[in-house]
């Protein structure tokens, strides 16, 4: 249902520009690898676990290869070559030995290379097969337990302790959450390794680990069956280990992942090149695993003004869409983000929000949009906060948003309490049930305030996208275009983990991801439920 009468010419132009702006970045991603991409390959190959200090074996192995022969050929050849030659049963054995300095790596040539490549390919196929099976498992559960209609209610748990998180997540599901996100500990995104095991000591969030993923997914499977409604699990594929976390998500049947093309750059000061290279791999995995990604445009509005910077959100969405599609994600997997962050003190703030939300809805009609609640203007006045969250919920309903992150009245104070979440769910439940199909009575006056504002934001977006095409995206990022934060292309953390691929670079996982239709194994049907919007 279109209400804004957007000019299709302008919309097409915006997409063409996004494609142009993304092209050089995609080219860079196709010609580089990173330590985490290589580690992800090993994880898909079945290597898990860590030494007694908690440093994972994948890190040991990749570091050892890098030290001895560099990474420009990828780890596949040297690792499977070593496995052929050395007396280790599996990657784990090899990694332990490598950690002790007991393994000598080389880049095999000729038939040795062929043989190592063959083993690596088999391992990759097996790993991808496991991801495929997880996707099939989800499809089965969705059929059997039932898939809730959109909009989905998205809730956060953030105790830092997986064993406190689990009952809170189950409680949230029982009270109506369709999606549960386990927020990560503050420090994790800068760690260049993925912690291991079940963890209980995060700060303002719980570490993303394979075991935590497994525990939570299994707890949610239980509650899904109890409720007759599949409850989705979300985590964060971002930070220095984005490719590995995406891989673990695929292996443990997570359902959605925060995976933005620029979040780590802007909000964690991670090197832009590292981010874009890691991102392409992660998104290919997400595509294959039937995972919906959520992008992070909402974050810009916490550091920039939501009115002044509205067009930067749209520009970023167009870029995220382009990068996503290039990596194989379907429209139904593009949970593009935006947010209700306009200063409530300014006149007509709610109508401005409606204009922005409806614009995004019409620009991306098939994407399961993720709509974020107010955070920046939430204060210690919890009553005012509860009110603002209600209007956020209302805007979501009036503009047909798909995934609604539930706002907490205590956003300005602390990470959510059990009762905050419960009250927040009562809030959204009231708004949803009371308003029903109110969206059909929301008809912005032709050429009125809402329509004009939407057009203005779209036209500012096209202008900005043109400038980005001229100057390159890396320059735009360096100039502080997004979130008024300047991030030069060679600054930030993790650049030393970026390696240009040699001609003979081999990564059989990437070969599969680059060459196959990610949705073919699932019958071509992307997992996420059809949107319930009209």
């Amino acid at each position: 249902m279109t209400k804004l009468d957007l000019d299709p010419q302008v919309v097409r132009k915006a997409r063409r520009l996004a494609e142009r702006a993304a092209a050089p970045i995609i080219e860079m991603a196709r010609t580089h690898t990173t330590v985490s991409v290589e580690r992800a390959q090993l994880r898909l190959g079945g290597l898990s676990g860590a030494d007694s200090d908690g440093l994972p074996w994948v890190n040991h192995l990749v570091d050892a290869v890098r030290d001895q022969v560099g990474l420009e050929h990828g780890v596949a050849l040297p690792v499977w070559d070593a496995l052929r030659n050395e007396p280790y049963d599996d990657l784990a054995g090899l990694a332990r030995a490598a950690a002790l300095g007991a393994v000598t790596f080389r880049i095999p040539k000729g038939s040795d290379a062929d043989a190592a490549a063959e083993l690596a390919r088999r391992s990759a196929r097996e790993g991808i097969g496991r991801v495929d099976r997880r996707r099939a498992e989800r499809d089965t559960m969705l059929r059997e337990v039932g898939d809730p209609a959109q909009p989905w209610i998205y809730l956060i748990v953030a105790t830092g302790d997986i064993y406190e998180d689990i009952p809170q997540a189950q409680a949230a599901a029982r009270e109506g959450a369709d999606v549960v996100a386990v927020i990560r500990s503050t420090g994790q995104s800068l760690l260049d390794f993925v912690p291991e095991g079940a963890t209980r000591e995060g700060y303002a969030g719980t570490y993303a680990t394979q075991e935590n993923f497994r525990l939570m997914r299994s707890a949610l499977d239980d509650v899904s069956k109890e409720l007759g409604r599949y409850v989705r699990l979300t985590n964060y594929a971002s930070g220095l280990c984005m490719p590995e976390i995406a891989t673990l998500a695929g292996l443990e049947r997570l359902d959605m992942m925060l995976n933005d093309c620029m979040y780590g750059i802007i909000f964690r000061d991670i090197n832009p090149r590292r981010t874009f290279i890691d991102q392409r791999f992660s998104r290919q995995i997400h595509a294959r695993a039937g995972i919906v990604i959520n992008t992070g445009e909402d974050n810009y509005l916490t550091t920039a003004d939501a009115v002044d910077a509205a067009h930067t959100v749209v520009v970023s969405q167009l870029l995220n869409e382009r990068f996503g599609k290039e990596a194989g994600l379907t429209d139904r997997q593009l949970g593009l983000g935006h947010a209700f962050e306009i200063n409530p003190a300014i006149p007509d703030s709610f109508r401005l929000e409606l204009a922005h939300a409806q614009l995004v809805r019409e620009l991306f009609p098939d994407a399961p949009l993720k709509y974020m609640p107010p955070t920046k203007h939430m204060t210690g006045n919890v009553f005012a906060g509860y009110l603002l969250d209600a209007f956020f919920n209302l805007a979501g309903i009036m503009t047909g948003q798909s995934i609604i992150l539930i706002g907490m009245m205590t956003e300005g104070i602390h990470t959510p309490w059990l009762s905050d979440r419960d009250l927040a769910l009562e809030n959204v439940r009231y708004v949803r049930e009371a308003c029903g199909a109110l969206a059909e009575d929301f008809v912005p006056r032709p050429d009125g305030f809402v329509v004009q504002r939407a057009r203005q934001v779209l036209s500012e977006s096209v202008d900005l996208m043109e400038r980005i095409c001229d100057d390159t995206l890396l320059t735009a990022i360096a100039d502080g275009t997004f979130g008024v934060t300047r991030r030069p292309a060679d600054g930030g953390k993790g650049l030393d983990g970026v390696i240009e691929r040699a001609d003979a670079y081999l990564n059989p996982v990437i070969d599969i991801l680059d060459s196959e239709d990610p949705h073919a194994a699932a019958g071509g049907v992307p997992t996420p439920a059809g949107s319930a919007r009209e």
Partner: protein
Amino acid sequence: MKQRQAATDVPEAQDIPSIIRPYGDTTGDAMVQMSFTLPVPAGRRAEIAALRLAGQMGLDPASVVHSKPMGPNFTFFIVYGKVNHLIDYAGIEVPAGREYPLLAAKEVDLAIRTVLNRRLVVVGACIGTDAHTVGIDAILNVKGFAGEKGLEYHREIQVINMGAQVTVAELVERAKAENADAVLVSQVVTQKNAHIHNTKQMAAAFHDAYPTAVGPGMGRPLLIAGGPRFDTVTEEELGVDRIFGKGTTPGEVAAYLVHALLPNWIPSEPS
């Protein structure tokens, strides 16, 4: 017909700790939220006063997360903090709950017919200047409450609903005239403790009017008070036989009448 459960509350798991504290997001964090107004101008000094109050209430640490001047002489505060009190949950006697079983409507009528051999007479009213009749009507009128019919619906109960704004004198007079077995009064307005004053006054008047009474049903009517905000007082304090609070259903009252006025009745099918 299957009788409803007479016991109180949900069954409790064995693993509830005996000493508990409030829960924010972690066991034992003891976090609570408060809001209040202080009659002083906003500012740092007012905030300190708010924190002092929080301190006296046992909050440590406490944070003023919001303060808002309301005109020149008042400030509104929202405070969050950790209380240093422990609640001895194990030491709370599991409340007796309903000390009598719920009864089917037919059972109530049967009890009255059998034991009393006449209709049981109840007189109800909103006393004082209170005009909130919805609550007492919910108990007395056929229409009832929460899907249960009111007392009027019983063949064996004669209901005289005097309506609103009835004086205590009128009520006593009517109760005597009708030979009431039970008197039911409702009080909804609580400002300046109107509900407590009025109910005490009513109880005193009945005790005066029946000086030789031995107890409820023995020389004087059973005295029942109801309303949403009687949770701060006990029957003894008010001088009544029973208080009914928020969400009372007519069936609970009917069963109580049988229990209190026909103590020898043994329900055919106990529950």
